[in-house]
């Protein structure tokens, strides 16, 4: 999610460079063609809700739970 977009989704991926007339220098990084879509948040409430949905607790060694 970036720049106020919600509903990010990659719908398709494919090797679109294979068999091209020249070899590409980026090939070694496993480049694939993709399609992706997203939607501009309809309002501030939707954007805030989308950011809130991304919040999560990250367990870290050394916390009270880990020492118990």
């Amino acid at each position: 999610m970036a720049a106020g977009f919600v509903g990010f989704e990659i719908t398709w991926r494919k090797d679109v460079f294979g068999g091209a007339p020249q070899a590409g220098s980026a090939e070694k990084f496993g480049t694939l063609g993709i399609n992706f879509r997203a939607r501009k948040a309809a309002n501030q409430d939707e954007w805030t809700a989308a950011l809130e949905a991304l919040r999560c607790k990250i367990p870290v060694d050394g916390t009270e739970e880990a020492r118990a």
Partner: protein
Amino acid sequence: MSDVLREQESALDVNVLRQAIQEEYNEVASHPHKGFHFHTGRPLARILEYQDEWLEGIPESCIESFAGTGNPFSLGELSSGERIVDVGCGAGIDSLIAAKKVGPNGRVIGVDMTSSMLKKSRRAAEEAELKNVQFREGYAEALPVDDGWADVVISNGVLNLMPDKAAALEEMNRVLKPGGRLQIGDILVQKAVPESAKRKIDLWTG
């Protein structure tokens, strides 16, 4: 300018990168059959699953310089009367397909930084007699389009060439109406690209 670009500037000369990309795509415009590290033209359109009917009425001079990496039209229908911005429109194939889809009550603005591509796209729109499409010179990071103008932003094989991707996405967001759609064809890498490699111009263009 975003923080991302400021960090990159010390490592990558953005103007040199833009010039290299323009030179590469000038070649795609003027010598489309030369043979590149990517497919072009109708063979590429087939790989990307473009439907034959989309290409009907679109001049060959436009199709031959097609150099996308995905299929923005597979991501959602463009409806009659909608307004579309095509970021990095190249020779104009996606803009012209979009212009056909939205019909005479819709509008399409194609934006590109390469003058030879814009020349081809304008000529192709005239040949196709599509009057609802306009082509403008500009950068993805500073789109020459009003705030909230577009229902849909499309782009195809362009975002990966942007040194400042965050700025380009912010601009796409700015020109979209609230709730507007982003439909993008681009590339991803399956292996991490080292920072040292990101400074190599030929890796960006090839």
